[in-house]
């Protein structure tokens, strides 16, 4: 059964014009059980709730939101590292719940935030980058070496570093190694979890340029998790705004950035600080308290911080409204 699924995954990938989106989430949710104390009752934390989105081949989807909103949990589910509590994730139309994690790993690869902790300090770059090949039993030792050299050229790492250890590299070089490790299996989707937030701006620019070049060269699909909205604006095609585990606005980047419809998206965009000294610090219409995810507010979970709160916001759950190029979960549009 597992093998069947694996074969279909391969087959769907072979058809260039296939209709199925590269990556799709249908009603995906994930709960965690949290024990508050030794004797107290266990509580249910709904980290991600009812997320529906789809990413086409070659598209860049950015997931944005404050810390604790469920971005990383969603990413882990897309990587097959966590099983969704509800709903299903599809890669090229194939549900991944029954698929071996190694098969998922051939399609989806991650690049993590901090290149100082995501690389094993005791391994040389060669063994770091060739580990995925070893796990999947690809090639002989010589062939693997060749593939590592090719991928190093691609991410513009000098060949002489092949026997170096991560501590001999700069932050930007380490992040290139992390990207190379993700690319060596020739995956379709790269999942970047804040890939540049640990880097300096001049290095960030190099990495962003490289990610864009690689996307064009290898026809990659990116899921880009970030809280830096300027970077998101620069890279993304579509944007998904998350708040307290829910998708509250999702759609075309240009529309969302030029005219955000959800009050939270509005506040998030207002808080971007462009380097313009003639503007002051923005006053953001947003209450201070991020709500307790163990005890989320009733009705719309955003209502305690919302500037446009109405009577029914604290009572009724808003539903997703389709506004053409995007979807918004807010009572203002019902």
């Amino acid at each position: 059964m597992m093998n069947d699924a694996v074969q279909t995954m391969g087959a769907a990938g072979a058809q260039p014009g296939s209709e199925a989106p590269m990556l799709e989430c249908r009603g995906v949710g994930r709960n965690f059980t949290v024990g508050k104390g030794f004797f107290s009752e266990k509580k249910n934390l709904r980290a991600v709730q009812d997320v529906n989105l789809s990413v086409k081949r070659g598209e860049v989807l950015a997931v944005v939101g404050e810390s604790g909103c469920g971005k990383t949990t969603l990413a882990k589910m897309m990587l097959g590292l966590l099983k969704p509590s509800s709903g299903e994730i599809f890669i090229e139309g194939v549900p991944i719940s029954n698929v071996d994690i190694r098969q998922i790993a051939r399609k989806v690869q991650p690049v993590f935030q901090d290149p100082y902790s995501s690389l094993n300090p005791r391994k040389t770059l060669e063994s770091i980058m060739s580990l995925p090949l070893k796990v999947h039993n690809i090639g002989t030792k010589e062939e693997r070496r060749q593939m590592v050299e090719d991928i190093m050229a691609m991410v513009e790492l000098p060949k002489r570093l092949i026997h170096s250890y991560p501590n001999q590299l700069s932050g930007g070089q380490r992040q290139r190694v992390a990207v190379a490790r993700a690319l060596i299996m020739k995956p379709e989707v790269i999942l970047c979890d804040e890939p540049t937030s640990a880097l300096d701006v001049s290095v960030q620019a190099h990495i962003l340029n490289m990610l864009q070049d690689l996307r064009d060269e290898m026809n990659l699909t990116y899921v880009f998790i970030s809280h830096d909205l300027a970077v998101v604006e620069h890279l993304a095609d579509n944007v998904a705004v998350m708040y307290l585990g829910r998708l509250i606005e999702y759609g075309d980047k240009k529309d969302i950035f030029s005219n955000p419809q959800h009050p939270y998206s509005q506040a998030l965009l207002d808080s971007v600080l462009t380097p313009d000294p003639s503007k002051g610090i923005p006053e953001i219409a947003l209450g201070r308290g991020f709500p307790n995810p163990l005890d989320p507010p009733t009705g719309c979970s955003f209502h305690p911080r919302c500037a446009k709160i109405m009577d029914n916001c604290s009572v009724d759950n808003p539903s997703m409204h389709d506004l053409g190029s995007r979807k918004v979960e807010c009572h203002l549009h019902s």
Partner: protein
Amino acid sequence: MNTESGPGGASKTVLDVKNLSVDINVPAGTLHAVDKISFHVDEGETLCIVGESGCGKSITSLAIMDLLPGRASLTADTLMLEQENLLVISKKEFAALRGNRMGMIFQDPMTSLNPVYRIGDQMEEVFIHHGKGRRKEARERAEYLLDKVGITAARSRLVQYPHQLSGGLRQRVMIAMTLMCGPTLVIADEPTTALDVTIQAQILILLKDLQKEFNMAMVFITHDLGVVARIADRVAVMYAGSFVETGTAQEVFEKPIHPYTQGLMACIPVPGSVTSGERLGSIRGLVPALVGDLEGCMFRNRCDSVHKACETGYVGLNALSEGRGYRCRMSVQECIDAGTGNLLTTGV
């Protein structure tokens, strides 16, 4: 270089630094972490020191607070906090200033608050230690300041531990703690880097409001150009241990002169002015090692307009006007022409 610190004018100079250098002994030799920087901050003014990691901006702040590690040695022509000469006072006298007349806000509120003490106790400790009053007055002051920094139900917060607060609240507590003794100088070292963007804006507004209210001088250290543009009165761009460009925020952002400043500005995606999807400008190469005898311009290995003259001698700060200067062998016009040339070739 002396033109940087003016006669003071109407407002009083709080911190005056001239030719501050910090050398650190490392196994390979002497590391010149900070090299002859000069600046001053007036009452109610914000000076932003902006630069990338390793450029010496945090060492600068530690040097002012006399918190340098033992291997580091400090030299300066002037280091004055108001009328106090910080170069000659004893350790004990310095300890009486620190936390009292000069306060510091650190980057990560998670590690800079003591996890095993209640917030109230940590805040009151500074106040009592500096002999500002007894516990009752300290508690009142703490409550008043927590309220000022926008923490509701201040009284109940005082008995909480740091882990019970969110990151934004913790940073507010840090700010309130810094203000306990009413400092005239506050050094903020990346105070918003660990926070969400929405919280960042709130904290920046808070700092600005408090600064106005208490008429503090603030040295704000950051790598985020967006933050600098919005909060700074004056800006010093730091690279490899020295200031490569100084000026008002308006001057530096509207007409950056030094190739490094121009490069930094081209690196950041700006919604609205940089077309999305286009290549960003970038600065090639790496920051040089600052160990041993240094000669010439420190930026020359990354500069697109490098000349023979850049390799030797000492490149000083060319003063253009009061507080405005840049550190380059080229003239202003040459710098700007070279900059637009670079931008054209990289396609930005």
